[in-house]
């Protein structure tokens, strides 16, 4: 397919791999921020093409993986109500809450529906006026314009029986949290191409300067990732720390203004808790006061929940690039995609699930 196949060309991949080997003189640790990139790296074995001096660690960029346990518990509570139709993206259903997951609620007769787009949930609300329809709005900046539009249209069209359970997170504050943590080993970032498609990359410029770290906005195909790695290492070897854009076919410096306008119309910046990481100030989006009527936490009175995370799961360390999945004692044994202990084993963009799917044998024997 156009815009996919050509970026997987084996010869071009080899040429990039050789070019990376040529420029690399010292050991470097880079983090790919986005779970979509993690998936591609493990699936295509991009990391195995790199010189041994280069280590790729996997970042926090999987919204499913960083949704805190108490939010899953809130979702379970709301979805269990007989008057509710609960709509969600598919991979949220298997994320373990404190006691069970959404799938268990569905098995007991809860009306839980997997949708492709938040607009599908809005449509369900319109067609079922006697029910409360709740959409589980998880996501990074990439998904925020879609969720903003669903709320905006509900408001405009006066659809009262629709609300959002919001768990929106923002990427730059998480990158800063990683860079300022004492155990940090990340020296350069591949920034998430689709987050930047929406937001642009001016937000990253002060981060690159402050922490003296190169940030390369990178796409999702093997050639994109290899070029991103190449540009990042070249900067490191030359002692530069700038924001560069590898993914120019989709990303403009200022981002998508129309999408940003709607995000700003509906959402405001709030502190958010990240699963396995803890609370990060100004790291998420919540509904603005004008749209608070569409906030499911208020509508169903579940705002005050807190919950503890399972102790065995080290996904917090994995999401910060400190550990790799196969270093977790539960990996592939007590924790599998069929029986996940942590969210990073559920979503296909979670590092644990990617390793399990593509690296199980080698990772377990390592």
């Amino acid at each position, binding site marked *: 397919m156009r815009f996919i196949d050509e970026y997987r060309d084996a010869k*071009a991949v080899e040429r990039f791999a050789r070019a990376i080997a040529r420029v690399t003189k010292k050991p470097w640790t880079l983090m790919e921020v986005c779970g979509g990139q993690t998936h591609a790296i493990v699936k295509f074995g991009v990391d195995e093409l790199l010189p041994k001096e280069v280590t790729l660690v996997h970042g926090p960029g999987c919204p499913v993986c960083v949704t805190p346990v108490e939010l899953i518990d809130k979702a379970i509570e709301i979805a269990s109500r007989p008057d509710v139709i609960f709509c969600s993206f598919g991979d949220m259903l298997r994320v373990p809450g404190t006691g069970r997951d959404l799938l268990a609620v569905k098995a007991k007769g809860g009306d839980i529906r997997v949708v492709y787009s938040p607009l599908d949930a809005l449509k369900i609300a319109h067609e079922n006026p006697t029910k409360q329809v709740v959409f589980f709005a998880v996501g990074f900046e990439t998904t925020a314009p879609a969720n903003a539009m669903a709320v905006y249209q509900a408001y405009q069209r006066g659809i009262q029986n629709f609300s959002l359970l919001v768990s929106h997170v923002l990427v730059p504050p998480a990158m800063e949290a990683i860079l300022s943590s004492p155990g940090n080993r990340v020296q350069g970032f591949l920034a998430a191409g689709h987050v930047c498609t929406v937001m642009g990359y001016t937000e990253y410029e002060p981060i690159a300067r402050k922490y003296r770290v190169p940030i390369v906005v990178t796409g999702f195909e093997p050639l994109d990732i290899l070029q991103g790695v190449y540009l990042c290492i070249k900067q490191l070897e030359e002692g530069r720390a700038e924001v560069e854009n590898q993914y120019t076919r989709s990303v403009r410096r200022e981002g998508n203004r129309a999408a940003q306008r709607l995000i700003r119309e509906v959402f405001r910046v709030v502190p958010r808790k990240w699963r396995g990481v803890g609370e990060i100030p100004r790291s998420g989006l919540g509904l603005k006061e004008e749209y608070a009527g569409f906030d499911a936490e208020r509508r169903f009175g579940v705002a005050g929940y807190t919950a503890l995370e399972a102790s065995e799961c080290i996904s917090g360390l994995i999401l910060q690039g400190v550990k790799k999945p196969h270093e977790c004692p539960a990996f592939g044994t007590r924790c599998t995609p069929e029986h996940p202990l942590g969210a990073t084993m559920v979503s296909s963009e979670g590092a644990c699930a990617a390793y399990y799917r593509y690296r199980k044998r080698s990772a377990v024997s390592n």
Partner: protein
Amino acid sequence: MCLAVPGRIISITGDEPLLRTGKVSFGGIVKEVSLAYVPEANVGDYVIVHVGFAISRLDEEEAEQVFEYLRQMDELRELEENPA
């Protein structure tokens, strides 16, 4: 869930900016997609689609950049290895 994939616009309906939608083909699989955020996109253009919304129009010229960069790198290396 964060997946965003390229597809080609095959038709467009509606002209109110926020309600503009289109049929987008992903290698033959056709889906209805909101074009609210790509007012500049026309039939025949490729867009990146995420959860039912086009979030960018792919720039055909920029799409060649990766290959152009490779070519220049290889040329540079030849120059370095065989200085005339």
